């Protein structure tokens, strides 16, 4: 039988062991809490980042169409007839097949178009023809017809450039009558009433069908795509769609 002293020591050992175990459990629980807290903070941070990202200016606002003066400056002094920009007698024609809702087309308009106009169109080396290649559904078709109606008043390029500068998120429903009218107004379309009634012309559907057939014949399955035609034949532009690639293609057919 254990002595009183031994019993005391045994009880003390048991108590110490229980305390150590409780400490370990406590430590583990605290650690789990810390990790869960870090996880919650991370989730919250991601939500905040996504909300901030979504709340920025995404374009497509009828009440805030901007860039009219910049577009006017970019196209100042360049002849325009219908959707042909530049000297109509230029022996090289650059056709841009583009969809107004397409972000890659906007990227081209934002970063390359001015260089193409300055290097090729203004000096009369080439004319630039915009072709509405509708690949993104009904809203793109509505926008294309509005652009064609603007081109009937020789403001098609202003309309297209302004549309891209104010482009919203595709398929988000921003291509409303109000938005299109705001773009037409800022594009300097002289007769807005005529533009509005022209949007429904049956001829535009035929135009879009023609462009569709031409694009498919050329093997274009994305936008923007470019076809360059001149005395030296025909040349396609590499898919980087850079101004320098377009200049190379023009040189190749001059």
């Amino acid at each position, binding site marked *: 039988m254990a002595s009183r002293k031994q019993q005391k020591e045994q009880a003390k050992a048991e108590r110490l062991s229980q305390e150590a175990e409780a400490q370990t459990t406590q430590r583990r629980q605290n650690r789990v809490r810390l990790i869960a807290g870090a996880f919650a903070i991370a989730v919250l941070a991601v939500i905040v980042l996504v909300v901030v990202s979504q709340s920025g*200016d995404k374009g497509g606002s009828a009440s805030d169409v901007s860039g009219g003066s910049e577009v006017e400056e970019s196209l100042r002094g360049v002849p325009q007839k219908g959707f042909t920009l530049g000297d109509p007698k230029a022996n090289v024609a650059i056709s841009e097949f583009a969809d107004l809702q397409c*972000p890659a087309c906007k990227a081209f308009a934002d970063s390359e178009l001015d260089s193409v106009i300055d290097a090729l169109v203004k000096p009369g080396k080439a004319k630039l023809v915009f072709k509405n290649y509708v690949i993104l559904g009904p809203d793109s078709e509505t926008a294309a017809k509005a652009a064609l109606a603007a081109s009937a008043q020789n403001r098609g390029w202003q309309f297209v450039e302004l549309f891209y500068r104010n482009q919203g998120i595709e398929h988000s429903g921003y291509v409303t009558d109000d938005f299109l009218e705001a773009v037409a107004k800022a594009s300097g379309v002289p007769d807005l009433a005529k533009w509005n009634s022209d949007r429904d012309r049956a001829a535009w559907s035929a135009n879009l069908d023609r462009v569709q057939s031409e694009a498919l014949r050329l093997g274009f399955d994305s936008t923007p795509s470019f076809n360059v035609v001149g005395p030296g034949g025909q040349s396609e532009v590499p898919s980087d769609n850079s101004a320098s690639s377009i200049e190379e293609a023009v040189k190749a057919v001059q």
Partner: protein
Amino acid sequence: MIASESTVRVAIVVLSTIGIAIAGYLTVTEFMGEVPVCAAGGGSGCATVANSSYSHLLGIPVSVFGLAGYVGILASALIPGESGRLGGFLLSLVGVGFSGYLTYLELFVIDAICQWCVASAVVMALLLILCVLRLLTPDAIGSRDAMS
């Protein structure tokens, strides 16, 4: 068998340095007004993504946030103990969450893929795995500084 914490920390340093290089390149091209060199997506994917309205947060290029995140993860790998482990876990989790959102935008909203963004998303995902591993190493589980 779970690797030792020091091995995991070395791997985090290496990967976060790669991440810094990628985000740093994108940041430099952005501030120089250039478009990143892009081999994917026919060469125009990076330009499309860089010109999209999602390329900036509060007027700051998204790549700057990425750069800050990678620097933070690198710093966390150099910090011993639980604060370093938790810091790395927190930052890499935010990085993966936001990279996932950006990848979704590329695929379904912007309709363009930027190889640098994809590379960054992969690096961030690997960093999250490493940071979780670091939390689970025997050193970490048995550490007394867990409470400190």
